[in-house]
């Protein structure tokens, strides 16, 4: 795996800066929580469903506290107090809550120390279920084995039933991983839609029921094929930790989980999403779900040659964030992409340099490698070729999560035949070039090595600067994706609050204890 002759000291220094950058943000995070974090706690206590106005119960409860109580204490204490005061179990209390015009804040608050005792029963059930999911996943993967490079496709019809059909056919065609793309705009909703859905735009709503339906379908087809088919969905957005919880409960295997994506591409407030990200990644860590980060997206708005180092720097920072959340390298699906203009001389060599650099910098990470999108046009034949070239680099540089490019990338979300042809494209490369990476070495100080080292040096310089400026200012400067985002602008800031000294979050307390033990 060592083909680039990289400077190890430089790498260590990058990590040091990244750690310091993440730590700085973490200091902020530790003092705050968000409505979404609190709703996640409720979900993990087992609260599901919507009221008669289709408002999710968890939203109603947290909003209730926000309006009528002191959310800075966290929602945990309010629930515990309500159960105790009413002498009801959770189901009984929720029935009571919904049928009578009461507030969660109506009750005398219990002593801080009692909270966990009252709620343990509930969150334990969830955490046990998640643990079982994790064990089952491990068991199934051990049973069936796992490909070195896994083929990842998306379904995006908007209709979960149609998605199921297409996901199963994709698995039969050879896909290892299936992602259900979310309906466009969902990431800006400050609640998670409920129940099975059959309408969406450019994707299907991420709901717990839809997760369940798809998980079942993939298990079914996996059983038919003697393979474990991984399921992916998207956490990034205003409900990051809630989706992480839902994904954990329904045995998703991968979650797109990146605050940077939300900030830059969805204009979500940075404070909000940093806090949400931390809690959601802790859940990912506990549930054994691989995260996918979105550095690849930077290259859709910035130039992939000039701004390559911003991807690398961001990967280091995302690694830093992930480590804060106790995520193991084996779950860090850092993102990168094949986005250099193919009309540039030696662009293929530049792509090799970049992909191999990611590979060598994060040797244990199940890197997510994205196909060309920006320089794909409506010429489906040209696109099919570009995807073949991308597939070659994927194999040459031994990536793990191999998102397949679609020949109709510039046209529509994939048709069933687009996906099938994409899989066959990747399979032909995988098979016909199986040992190619073992066969070849790159010239010492040649074009590829030089480029990789140059990108690493630039990333190092950038990290140093960011460490000086801090993340907030860096984002305001538009360092990533050439998009500027102000500290106090963007969506969802009103859902952020400072934790009081008496703040309690029974789930994160439990998880922290768990991580300390394990």
């Amino acid at each position, binding site marked *: 795996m060592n083909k680039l002759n990289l400077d190890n000291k430089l790498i260590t220094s990058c990590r040091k800066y990244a750690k310091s950058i993440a730590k700085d943000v973490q200091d902020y995070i530790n003092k705050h929580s968000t409505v979404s974090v609190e709703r996640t706690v409720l979900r993990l206590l087992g609260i599901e469903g919507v009221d008669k106005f289709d408002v999710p119960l968890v939203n109603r409860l947290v909003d209730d506290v926000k309006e009528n109580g002191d959310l800075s204490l966290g929602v945990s204490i309010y629930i515990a107090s309500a159960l105790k005061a009413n002498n009801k179990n959770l189901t009984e209390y929720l029935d009571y809550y919904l049928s009578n015009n009461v507030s969660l804040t109506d009750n005398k608050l219990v002593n801080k120390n009692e909270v966990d005792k009252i709620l343990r029963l509930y969150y334990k059930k969830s955490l046990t279920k998640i643990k079982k999911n994790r064990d089952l996943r491990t068991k199934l993967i051990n049973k069936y084995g796992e490909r070195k490079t896994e083929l990842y496709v998306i379904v995006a019809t*908007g209709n979960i039933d149609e998605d199921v059909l297409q996901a*199963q*056919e994709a698995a*039969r*065609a050879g896909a290892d991983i299936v992602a259900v793309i979310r309906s*466009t*705009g969902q990431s*800006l909703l400050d609640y998670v839609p409920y129940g099975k859905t059959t309408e969406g*735009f*450019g994707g299907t709503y991420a709901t717990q029921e839809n997760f369940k339906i798809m998980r079942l379908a993939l298990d079914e087809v996996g059983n038919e094929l003697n393979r474990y088919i991984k399921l992916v969905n998207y956490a990034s957005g205003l409900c990051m930790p809630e989706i992480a919880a839902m994904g954990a409960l329904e045995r998703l295997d991968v979650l797109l989980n990146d605050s940077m994506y939300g900030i830059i*591409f*969805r*204009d979500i407030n940075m404070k909000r999403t940093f806090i949400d990200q931390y809690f959601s990644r802790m859940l990912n860590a506990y549930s054994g779900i691989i995260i996918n980060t979105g550095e690849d997206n930077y290259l*859709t*708005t910035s130039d992939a040659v000039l701004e390559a180092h911003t991807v690398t720097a961001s990967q280091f920072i995302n690694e830093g964030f992930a480590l804060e959340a106790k995520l193991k390298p084996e779950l860090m699906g850092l993102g990168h992409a094949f986005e250099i203009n193919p009309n540039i001389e030696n662009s293929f060599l530049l792509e090799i340099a970049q992909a191999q650099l990611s590979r060598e910098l994060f040797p244990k990470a199940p890197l997510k490698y994205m196909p060309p999108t*920006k320089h794909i*046009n409506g010429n489906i034949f040209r696109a099919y070729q570009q995807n073949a070239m991308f597939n070659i680099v994927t194999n040459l540089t031994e990536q793990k999560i191999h998102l397949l490019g679609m020949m109709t990338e*510039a046209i*529509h*979300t994939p*048709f*069933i*035949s687009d996906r*099938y*042809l994409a899989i066959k494209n990747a399979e032909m490369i995988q098979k016909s070039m199986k040992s190619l990476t073992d066969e070849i070495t790159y010239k010492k100080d040649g074009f590829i090595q030089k480029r990789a080292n140059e990108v690493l040096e630039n990333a190092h310089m950038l990290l140093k600067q960011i460490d000086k400026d801090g993340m907030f200012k860096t984002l305001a400067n538009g360092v990533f994706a050439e*998009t500027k985002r102000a500290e106090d602008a963007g969506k969802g800031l009103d859902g952020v609050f400072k934790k009081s000294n008496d703040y309690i979050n029974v789930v994160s307390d439990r998880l922290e204890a768990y991580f300390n033990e394990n």
Partner: protein
Amino acid sequence: MKIRPYGDTLNDGATQVSFTLPIELSAKAIQAAKELAKKMGLINPSVVHSEKIGKNFSFFIIYGALNANVDIDKIKVTEIKKTSKSQKEIEEMIKTNFERELIFVGASTGTDAHTVGIDAIMNMKGFDGHYGLERYQGIKAYNLGSQVNNEDFIKIARDKKADVLLVSQTVTQKDVHLKNLVELVELLESENLRDKVILIAGGARINHELAKELGYDAGFGPGNYAEDVALFAIEELIKRKEG
């Protein structure tokens, strides 16, 4: 002149088609594909490839000679000629004809998060070596970014006293862009603003034809740059001033 598709001989009608049928692959499925091709007007269609692509799906590639032709002399397209005017010349036009700065307000509207298109037209940096409107003297350009809903868009347009509105739409699945574009026109009309602005749409699947149909003054697809848009808007503004 009537023309037909061309493979290797004039008027051979050579046409390639592909599609998936939601049935298992069989001689019958192949025949079904062939009959569909015939219904498309292909003479002697040949199913050159058929492949099982799922339990209940088969994929077909067909070649045949298209019977239909089209008379190109009868085709009318309202086409916005790509300008040969430079940024300098356009700035000159503004200076000559207006005593004030022209206000352009642009956004990628609705839930659309794609900004590269609107940025290409508006941002300093521009695209493919063509500077964006922000760099034009005589133009004040406000780029509101993406995910701007139509109400907010109109509000800001009114506040800024916009002369020209630029709307970008990239996501077209389930025709979400059409809904969104039409809604904007309706809102503008209901607020009596429609006639007070030049309304321009753009995006990967937008063209002038379509934009006109939807009630816009112009539409620009891929391959257009700031100067094309600026020239159209300015000529239109001059016309309106004079007319």
